[in-house]
């Protein structure tokens, strides 16, 4: 096991290193940093001095090494726009994104599970067909357009919910959270639903498939023969069995939910990491772009690593195969 763990750790570190090279070359070498970092009014001598100060006259590999060294110390440069350390900016915006992503996951389970259960129990009924058609729509509709329609209906036409922004927040542990105030929850409702839409469809499909499979199992027949009430068979025996894949997949989807919140945050002007990266790309705030990409890549590598390790604990075949 420890050999396997070590191998996977080394692999993850290599992937992270490769990604850092790609991001560095992509952001610092393809574009011309001189254009952005140095004011166009500067004369020749000033330019030369600034280039030397920024280390831009050194060969690319040397620049990369100093970038890597700084990155390992948690220094990814200062934002040109906010004049603050880029990583600090990401950290400030992270709670908004995380709370939105978690709210979306919770909604996906709360809405998706009952609908999927219903569709699985009565697969030929009209309701089930409507639910499945709805889930196809949930997969194929572009998120941003659904978000706009939500704003149009619930904010502009009906006026029930605020259209954009984050609303009132509460400070806990020095970070701002909006899920503890009524105003914050009202602001969060539409973005969370919007972000959840794709996952709701996913949970519906998983649950339906699981229910249809489980209902044919011997233990369900046995429970029926024993004379248990249908509500108990479904609520306890079937439910427990379908929960395993549903929870695994939704857990795995957390990373992609955070990535896709870029779109939802832009639609609803939700001040999270996603909004920050889009704004930064538009004004070419390179340190922030790099900091966002590196931290999100790191997050994905960690998630993948943890999932792989969990699988190898649960399923010995994975471990043996890789020997």
């Amino acid at each position, binding site marked *: 096991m420890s050999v396997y763990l070590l191998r996977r750790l080394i692999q993850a570190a290599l992937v992270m290193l490769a990604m850092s090279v790609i991001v560095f070359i992509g952001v610092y070498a393809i574009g011309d940093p001189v254009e952005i970092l140095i004011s166009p009014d500067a004369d020749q001598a000033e330019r030369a001095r600034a280039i030397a100060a920024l280390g831009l006259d050194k060969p690319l590999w040397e620049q990369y090494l100093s970038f890597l060294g700084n990155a390992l110390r948690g220094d990814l440069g200062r934002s040109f726009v906010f004049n603050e350390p880029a990583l600090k900016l990401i950290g400030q915006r992270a709670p908004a994104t995380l709370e939105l992503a978690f709210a979306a996951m919770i909604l996906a389970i709360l809405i998706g599970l009952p609908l999927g259960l219903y569709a699985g129990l009565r697969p030929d009924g009209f309701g089930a067909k409507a639910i499945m058609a709805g889930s196809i729509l949930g997969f194929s509709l*572009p998120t*941003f*357009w659904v978000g706009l329609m939500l704003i149009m209906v619930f904010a502009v036409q009906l006026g029930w919910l605020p259209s954009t922004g984050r609303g009132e927040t509460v400070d806990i542990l020095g970070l701002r959270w909006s899920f503890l105030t009524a105003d914050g929850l009202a602001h969060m409702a539409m973005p969370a639903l919007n972000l959840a839409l794709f996952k709701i469809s996913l949970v519906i499909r998983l649950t339906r498939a699981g229910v249809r499979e489980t209902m044919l199992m011997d233990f369900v027949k046995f429970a029926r023969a024993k004379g248990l009430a249908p509500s108990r068979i479904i609520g306890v025996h079937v439910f427990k069995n379908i929960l395993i894949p549903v929870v695994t997949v939704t857990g795995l989807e957390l990373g992609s939910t955070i*990535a896709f919140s870029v779109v939802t945050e832009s639609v609803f002007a939700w001040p999270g990491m996603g909004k920050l990266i889009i704004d930064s790309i538009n004004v070419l705030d390179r340190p922030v772009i790099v900091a966002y990409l590196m931290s999100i890549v790191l997050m994905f590598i960690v998630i993948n690593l943890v999932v792989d390790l969990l699988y190898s604990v649960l399923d010995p075949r994975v471990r043996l195969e890789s020997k």
Partner: protein
Amino acid sequence: MSVTTATPTPDKAPRVETPLQRFISEFAESKLALGALIVFLCIVLIALFAPLIAPQNPYDLAQLDIMDGRLEPGSRNGDDTMTFWLGTDDQGRDMLSGIMYGLRISLMVGAGSAIVAAVVGASLGMLAAYAGGKTDTVIMRLVDLQLSFPTILSALMILAFLGKGIMNVVIALIVVEWAYYARTVRGTALVERRREYIEAAQCLALPTRRIIFRHLLPNCMPPLIVVATIQIARAIALEATLSFLGLGVPITEPSLGLLIANGYEYMLSGKYWISFYPGIALLVTIVSINLVGDHLRDVLNPRLKK
């Protein structure tokens, strides 16, 4: 299986269905998929002939009048010479014409990137399956890595490096999509290459390239076609998303996504049509392609054959 209704005359041999005919009749069994295909073909025709049928050239500034800006659907223009059936945007541009021209860009980017990604992905997948060993490992590691990141993140990263522009969006979509094709083709090719006809071709000492492209590839086509259909829809949706975020196509060549983004600020003041109708066009396009793809999967899947 479909039954031929015509009674065969005794002096004529019973008609043999070619695979293509069988495929067409099986596809036509689903009225929904057939309807979706017809809708999609209409959309393609509209996009192809937009310059001929659009009431206005939305990029010809001489035809635009800023006084016609943000008119409601169905209103007439200032000179009372034409009706804006779907309203106008802030530049006084007819939305119907804008949507027709936007469809051209959306379809072009979606189909173009899907085709290149299919060629790249299928070649690499085929190579991985046929060569095996180290080549296989390296290619499939890359595929795994690519698929472990969400599409939007990879696309965002590439556009952050390259900047806006139609070509850059196409490149981003290709990078995002190729892995799906590679994985599908490799899976099919691994099964197919153990079949007798490949063995026979190898015994005849045919060149490897010929075996791969003339023998292996045609037999890997069905799943490839299914993936390609779904991926075109995904590419169109992703392009629209990127353009909406302001990272995609430039403002001079608006796709549907950018049209929707342009109307975003006016929606809060109740002027819904600038965003709404391009969205409907996008929606109909994506859903019709998905319905066709969904049914193709059923028809082309040998495991579901009756």
